């Protein structure tokens, strides 16, 4: 058993509260992702779980045992450091072996395990190099490999793939998931990459300024963000205030916004008369029959889609459209499905 229970965790640096009164659980074998803006306290949280930081308040249980005061070396956790923290005097092999040696894994098994990890992370040619002769991405993979090779019951990842290219990232992501599942590890994963978060996680914890904003499955998070912060953060939704005018014909709610009249057929009912609503850039479809129009202010090619900034009603919105011949300065007409207009928290 190695579920994690965090109970009212708070971490203060002098006056500054990096993590404030955070509670959550991670079940045995679950893969949970921490998502949130830079500086919101993700690393701080991981460091409390692994034991480097002593929470100012609150308790942490791992596998049912209160470990709040247990030193890191006695917690069966492994952290893949955001800063890598490789041992500069050891070769890649030495780094990868380190944890296994501490666990007194027999020589043979150790060699095999290291060989396997190196192969999974494409590190074989680097095994005998010292960290300072490695590229950034190679260092990051060593840091990741060092944690993975431990196969601890709780594994914590702090942006383990940020310096890898998309292809490698995909490959490594699969390996991470495989190792986690094969060994039934409890995993907490920090990433800035939403697609990573959505693809890997059983549940996602969205943090903001040291507090938890929402905990949900990826699908729920995407389709039913609890707040405009989440909607905006996940998938870059266009958020705006709106007034609920009443129920629409054919189901859903009629809304009045700066963009004009909209219909929402959200899964949730509105919580107040004045609320925030959101819609996602990729949900707009360009069509001459659309009820919405705007002027294209900027355009950024993104491969299989194009990012547009469109001004309408004095506001700028973001649209993601498939290959488009929209030109900057020209007008564009688009539509939103009622199902894609999300109703969020009440306005304060």
């Amino acid at each position, binding site marked *: 058993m190695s579920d994690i229970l965090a109970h009212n965790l708070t971490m203060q640096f002098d006056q500054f509260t990096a993590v404030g009164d955070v509670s959550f659980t991670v079940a045995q074998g679950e893969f949970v992702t921490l998502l949130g803006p830079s500086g919101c306290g993700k690393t701080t949280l991981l460091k409390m779980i692994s*034991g480097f930081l002593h929470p100012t308040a609150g308790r942490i249980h791992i596998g049912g045992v209160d470990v709040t005061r247990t030193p890191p070396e006695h917690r069966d*956790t492994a952290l893949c450091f955001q800063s890598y*923290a*490789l041992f*500069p*005097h050891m070769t890649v092999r030495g780094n990868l072996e*380190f944890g296994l040696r501490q666990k007194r894994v027999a020589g043979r098994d150790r060699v095999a395990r290291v060989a396997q990890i190196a192969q999974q992370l494409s590190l074989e040619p680097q095994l005998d190099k010292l960290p300072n002769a490695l590229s950034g991405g190679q260092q990051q993979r060593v840091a990741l490999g060092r944690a993975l090779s*431990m196969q601890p019951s709780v594994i914590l990842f702090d942006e383990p793939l940020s310096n890898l290219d998309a292809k490698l990232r995909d490959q490594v992501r699969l390996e991470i998931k495989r190792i986690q599942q094969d060994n039934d590890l409890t995993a907490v994963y920090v990433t800035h990459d939403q697609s990573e978060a959505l693809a890997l996680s059983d549940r996602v914890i969205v943090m903001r300024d040291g507090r938890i904003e929402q905990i949900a499955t990826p699908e729920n998070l995407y389709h039913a963000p609890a707040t405009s912060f989440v909607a905006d953060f996940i998938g870059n939704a266009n958020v705006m205030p709106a007034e609920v005018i009443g129920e629409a014909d054919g189901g859903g709610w009629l809304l009045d916004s700066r963009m004009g009249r909209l219909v929402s057929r959200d899964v949730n009912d509105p919580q107040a008369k004045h609320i925030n609503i959101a819609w996602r850039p990729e949900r707009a479809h360009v069509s001459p029959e659309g009820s919405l129009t705007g002027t294209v202010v900027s355009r950024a090619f993104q491969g299989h889609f194009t990012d547009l900034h469109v001004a309408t009603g004095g506001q700028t919105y973001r649209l993601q459209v498939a290959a488009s011949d929209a030109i900057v300065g020209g007008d564009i007409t688009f539509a939103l499905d009622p199902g894609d207009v999300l109703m969020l928290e009440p306005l304060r």
Partner: protein
Amino acid sequence: MTARRWITVLLLLAPGLGLIVGMIGMVVYIAVAQSFGLYNLNGESVLTVAHWAEMLDRKLYTRAVRYSIYIGVWSAVLSVALAYPLAIWLRKPFRGSITVGAILKAPLLVQGLVAAFLFINVISFHGILNQFMQGIGLWDAPRRLQNDRGAFGVLFLQTWKNMPFALLLLTGAVQAIPDDVLDAARDMGAGTFARFRKIIAPLSLSAMQAALVIIFIGAVADFSFQVIAGPTNRQSLAQLMVFVRQTSWHEAAVVGVTLMVIALVGSLLLAVIARLLLRGPASR
């Protein structure tokens, strides 16, 4: 290496190593020459190995060699061994750490000779240690602790005086190890000792080598602690040197050159052994 690069290296070495080799090289030469009978202060100089033969043949000399190495090695090892935990403790500043550091370093500032006399006073036949032990009833009669045969007194004094030096060097080196790296080791399950052995020691190896070597050289050549607190049935090389100087400059030079060789070879060996034991970073 290009010629340009060599010139840079030589220019950089000039004010330090250059001065040393230029000035001391000559002195070393004189010492060696004197051990072979040259630079006679008392009559004619004759090139000869007789003085070496004479000294190598004496039990006093071979004993002194062994004894000095014993003192040198143990002083260096003990000082460094004591300094390490303290340096690690003082790695992160805390309330009072400056004071603690200053207290620990204070012996550096006490003249060695004075320290030795004070020490002798403490352990002398009627000194406070004897009085204390008798007072608490552990000993019935005063014991003769001074000039003990195992040279523990000398080792104590050496450590007392040199540990602060090792501490000074090691604190800096240990502080330069990033927190994250130490945290990572803990995270991988490395306990205090493993962390020391595998992370801290290798990463501060070069400071440790410097401390070992400098303390070793100082202790191998110890004179003042030895004459005051050392065992009376053997002499350190420096003591022997002064002793035979009363009769022959050349034999004193033989002892002196022996001392130099032991100091250099010994420090080289110590440094190499430390590196092998810890497999430190290959030179960058």
